[in-house]
Every structure is written in structure tokens, then in C-alpha cells.
């Protein structure tokens, strides 16, 4: 058991190998079999984003950072829910597990309300 903890994930490895084989295979096969007669119109940028007009090395709005930061914090909150959900029926009185998570969520609800009230997620 101890030796083969990782071997239980062998199906996932096979899945990854198949995904790479199919995804890469499509590119490789179409590279060799596809017909190529490029002309300037064909290789020009169209519907795939704008032509760059400025250096990309500029300061981004700090609101991107704020969204990322809030994402991490609420992501960590969700992480605490996973083992709780797995164990939910096994709490001694089930209400105990329910109340402790309710308290946890309730505290973070204040954070969420604060974020909304401060307009931290408004992009106007």
C-alpha cells in the first residue's frame, strides 16, 4: 500500500498521455497533410486581436491585482469547505459541524459585504 500510493493515479497518467497524443497529433498531422499556399491577406491578423500599437511594458491598473488578491482569499475559504463536505455526515452531532462552518462563512461574509460596499469590484 505504502509503496504504490502513486500507482493509483496511473489512469490519470494514461489520460494525460492520450490528451497530449490527440492534441499534438492533430497539429502534427495537419502540418504534414495540410495544403499551404500563403498570401499576404491570408497571413494577416484578422479577428485574432488588434495589431499592437504600443509597448506592452506599462503599468497595469491596480484593480487587476485587487481582483487577484480577493480571488486568492475566497479561494482559500473554499478550500476549507472541501474536507468539511467530505466529513459532514461524520460530525458527532451533525449540527456541530454545520454551526462551525456557518460561523466561518459568516465572518467572511462581512469581508464580502465590505468589498461590495466599497465598490472594490466596480470597473466603471
Amino acid at each position, binding site marked *: *500500500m*505504502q*509503496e*504504490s*500510493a*502513486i*500507482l493509483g*493515479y*496511473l489512469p490519470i*497518467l494514461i489520460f494525460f498521455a492520450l490528451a497530449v497524443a490527440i492534441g499534438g497529433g492533430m497539429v502534427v498531422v495537419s502540418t504534414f497533410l495540410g495544403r499551404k499556399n500563403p498570401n499576404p491577406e491570408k497571413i494577416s491578423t484578422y479577428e485574432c486581436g488588434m495589431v499592437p500599437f504600443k*509597448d506592452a*511594458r*506599462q*503599468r*497595469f*491598473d*491596480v*484593480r*487587476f*491585482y*485587487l481582483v*487577484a*488578491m*480577493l*480571488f*486568492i*482569499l475566497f*479561494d*482559500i*475559504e473554499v*478550500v*476549507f469547505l*472541501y*474536507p*468539511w463536505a*467530505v*466529513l459532514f455526515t461524520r*460530525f458527532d452531532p451533525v449540527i456541530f*459541524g454545520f454551526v*462551525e462552518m456557518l*460561523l*466561518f*462563512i459568516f*465572518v*467572511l461574509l*462581512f*469581508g*464580502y459585504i*465590505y*468589498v461590495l460596499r*466599497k465598490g*472594490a469590484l466596480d470597473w466603471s
Partner: protein
Amino acid sequence: MGLESILFYYFAIVIVATAALAVSRRNPVYAVLFLLPCLVHIAGLWLFLGAEFLAAIQIIIYTGAIMVLYLFVIFILDLGSFRTKRIIHQQKSLAIAGGLALIVQLVVLTIASTFPGPFGPPQEVVSGGNTQAVGGVLYTDFLFPFELASLVLLVAIFGAVVLARKESEETSS
């Protein structure tokens, strides 16, 4: 020896290689992107220890959230400008000192500690599953720290909003 060893060496080599690449890249965006496979493969090492919960957390938190944060920190730093480059180069001696201190610490800890036996998952993790083992103690024995964690997260939310809002008001005015 067998498939397990091959998998372990694959994970170990990729971790060391991508970590070395992340440190040595001059472009910070490339450095962060090399951290991505590094962290994913560390999740693979957690699976070797039967810690599938930690592996999932490693993917969700580190490769999901922390990497996005690292990238956005780089984006808002304005690394192309001369001023930012100068500030970063000024921190070189400090960074070398901090790195050396960490290396000394790790070497001393590795020499001083005794390893009780062969590496592997603890028995309770093997029998019940890692997620159940973590939750079983987290929501009973460590109930107070768990509830305290919500307060820490709450303070972090306040801090993030206050810091970023101040900054955006300064730039807009």
C-alpha cells in the same frame, strides 16, 4: 525500482530544472511561468506521500491563485522603466544575504534532524484518506485556529481593498 521510481525521478528532475530556470531567467514573466510546471510537479510529489488533498490544494491555491497574483504583481510593477530596474538592483545584496541565510538554515536543519524511518505516508493517512485525515483534526482538535483563519482572511480582505483603493485614487486624480 520500477514505474514508481521512474515517476519520482521524472517529478524530481522537472522540479529542480524548472526551479533553476525560474531563478535564472532575466525576464520576470518567464520566471513566473517556469514556476508553474514546478508547482504542478510538486503536487505530484504530494501524491507520492498519499496526500491527495495537499496535491489538490497545491494546484488550486498555488498554480491557480498565487501564480495569477505573481503575474499581476509583475504587471503593476512597470518593470520596463529605468526607475524600477534601479530599485530592484539596489536590493541585490539584500537578496543574496537572505538566500545565503536560507541555505545555511536548510543545511543545518538537514544535518541536525534524524529521519525516523523510510519516507512514506503516515498510517492514518493510508487507512482513511488524506482529506478525511486533515478534516478530522481540523474541525475538532483545531477548531479554534480554524475559526481564527476566517478572521485572518477577513483582515486580509480589508487590507487588500484599503491598499488597492488608495492607490487607484492617487493615479486617477
